[in-house]
């Protein structure tokens, strides 16, 4: 059975179409003044969490490695972004859009560098061990951030470890984090960042490297026997994911006036993982929808906020049990075969 070019095109570009359509609907609602203020304040975080979920999906779904420290990369991006934006404003005097751009790029680079440093030891491990070491790194990052102080004195940035007595204005002070951040993040920037993330991730998946990454996920030994450089490709996925998380983090950091390292705990990593798992591991469109729905719903349903995490936990367990249930798997397989037979009878047009 041949797949038509239209369905192939749709499969690859559906995430873009979805995001662009959603952006224009939101923009027209804002222009018409029909969007409530509370919903409007959710737009930027939703963009950030879409970026986080799609980038984590690259590690968990495409590369097949469970990372439990994604919020660590997000925090690096966030605090780098805050410092760089403040520096660009004070020392370089550039407009807000350029500050934001610098912040996002710097956040991505910094998180990418950390991704390389962490990836070297982490990617020598596999399975549960890899998961627990990413968790360990996430906690180490948070612990170390709690001890770092950064200040801006004129045009010079000062860093110190565990000593708050720095010259100039303190931008970042250990456990109390960053305060008085100017909120320069915009919805348009978030939208563009989501598009950029989709562009990077989808193109990576459909490239030669992407196929290599998936081959390593499916069978490492066979892929190695075919001559693939396993470490290189696993590293490529891991670092790309980290850098994108850093960029998302930078946007996130510049959306709030105060931010503390404790915001990026293990629970934050789990929250992103829940988006990925419930959206479907390896499914980019699924991650986008899950991140949007699961972020917006609890915020809109404040009355049920107490039960939110409990429901999350139950749904997470239920999804894992159902998707791994043998009889349900068999049932779905029969359904799929039946529809395939039907479409074959029609000559492949119904696909």
């Amino acid at each position, binding site marked *: 059975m041949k797949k038509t070019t239209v369905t192939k095109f749709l499969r690859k570009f559906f995430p873009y179409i979805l995001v662009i359509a959603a952006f224009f609907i939101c923009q027209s609602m804002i222009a018409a003044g029909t969007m409530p203020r509370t919903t409007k304040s959710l737009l930027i975080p939703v963009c950030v969490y879409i970026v986080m979920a799609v980038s984590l999906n690259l590690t*968990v779904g495409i590369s*097949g490695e*469970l990372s439990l420290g994604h919020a660590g990369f997000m925090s690096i991006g966030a605090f780098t972004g805050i410092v760089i934006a403040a520096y660009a404003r004070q020392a370089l005097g550039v407009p807000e859009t350029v500050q934001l751009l610098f912040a996002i790029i710097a956040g991505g680079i910094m998180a990418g560098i950390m991704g390389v440093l962490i990836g070297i*030891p982490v990617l*020598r*491990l596999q*399975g*549960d*061990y890899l*998961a*627990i*070491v990413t*968790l*360990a*790194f996430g*906690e*180490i990052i948070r*612990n*170390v951030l*709690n*001890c770092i102080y950064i200040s801006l004195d004129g045009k010079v940035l000062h860093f110190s470890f*565990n000593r708050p007595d720095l010259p100039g204005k303190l931008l970042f002070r250990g456990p109390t984090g960053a305060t008085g951040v100017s909120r320069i993040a915009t919805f348009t920037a978030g939208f563009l960042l989501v598009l950029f993330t989709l562009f990077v991730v989808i193109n990576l998946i459909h490239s030669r490297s992407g196929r290599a990454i998936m081959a390593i996920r499916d069978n490492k*030994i066979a892929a190695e026997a075919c001559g693939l450089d396993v470490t290189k490709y696993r590293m490529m996925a891991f670092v790309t994911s980290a850098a994108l998380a850093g960029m998302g983090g930078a946007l996130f950091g510049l959306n709030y006036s105060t931010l503390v390292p404790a915001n990026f705990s*293990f629970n934050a990593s*789990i929250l992103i*993982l829940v988006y990925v*798992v419930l959206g479907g*591991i390896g499914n980019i469109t699924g991650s986008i929808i899950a991140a949007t729905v699961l972020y917006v719903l609890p915020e809109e349903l404040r009355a049920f906020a*107490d*039960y939110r*995490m*409990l429901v*999350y*936990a*139950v749904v*997470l*367990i239920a999804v*894992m*049990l159902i*998707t*791994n*249930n*043998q009889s349900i798997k068999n049932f779905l397989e029969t359904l799929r075969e039946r529809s395939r037979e039907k479409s074959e009878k029609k000559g492949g047009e119904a696909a």
Partner: protein
Amino acid sequence: MTMFLSNLISGISLGSVYAIIALGYTMVYGIAKMLNFAHGDVIMVGAYICFCCLYNLGLPPVVGVLASMAVCTLLGILIERLAYKPLRQATSLAVLITAIGMSYFLQNLAQMIWGANPKSFQTVIPAGNLTLMGGELKISYVSMVTIAASVVVMVALSLFVGRSKMGRAMRCVSEDKGAAQLMGVNVDLTISVTFAIGSALAAIAGVLMCSAYPTLKPTTGAMPGIKAFTAAVFGGIGSIPGAMLGGILLGVIEILGRAYVSSELGDAFVFAVLILVLLIKPTGLLGKKIHEKV
């Protein structure tokens, strides 16, 4: 010198708690080949049950400890039957995510039942110190009981696994599940017993930990759980003496690191140790080398 000794003793005492938790991790990992992420939260449930028995019902401490062991044993079996047993054939990623879900579930359930505010735990062990070296070195009774309890648990568990029929079945299942089944070992029962023992130990650990550090909240178990897993990996996962050694070493490293290097970076030290161990000796201090088969 006395300062160092007193730090060392509190390190060993904290390490003994980690060791008891790590025993649960290591047994479950050895036999079911899964990382039971919810193990840390069973500790928290155990501590809450004991708290309720002492504070709300006014029962004597011994009854509280026994009750919390009983509840945790049931909880462990229940978790295994409901969440993990259907996933025996699934990928390790699926099982790990389910275990994380279970951990979240327990934390949030505890928050609904007992509230998010920390409760101050009434110690089950009489407060006070043993004074040595002319009053310079003080060892609290809590530390002494913790260390003694962990030694007793360790010896009892070694005897159970080494000598009893069920222990032999456990070793068989951990070696080869399929072959064990063919030899007439009831694999499901063996796994359930493993979870039961691990959870009962978690209850003891919860009570001991909250006696030493008396704040009890729904997330109390999470961090010690992760550290105990670190200890189990440190000592060589699947090995019972390894869990004991790893736990005690980790406790000592954490306390000495906090005391002599930086008080904020205590947790970072523990995790740095984990990473170093996995890189230098991936099977841990006392672990067996596993060959990869194609």
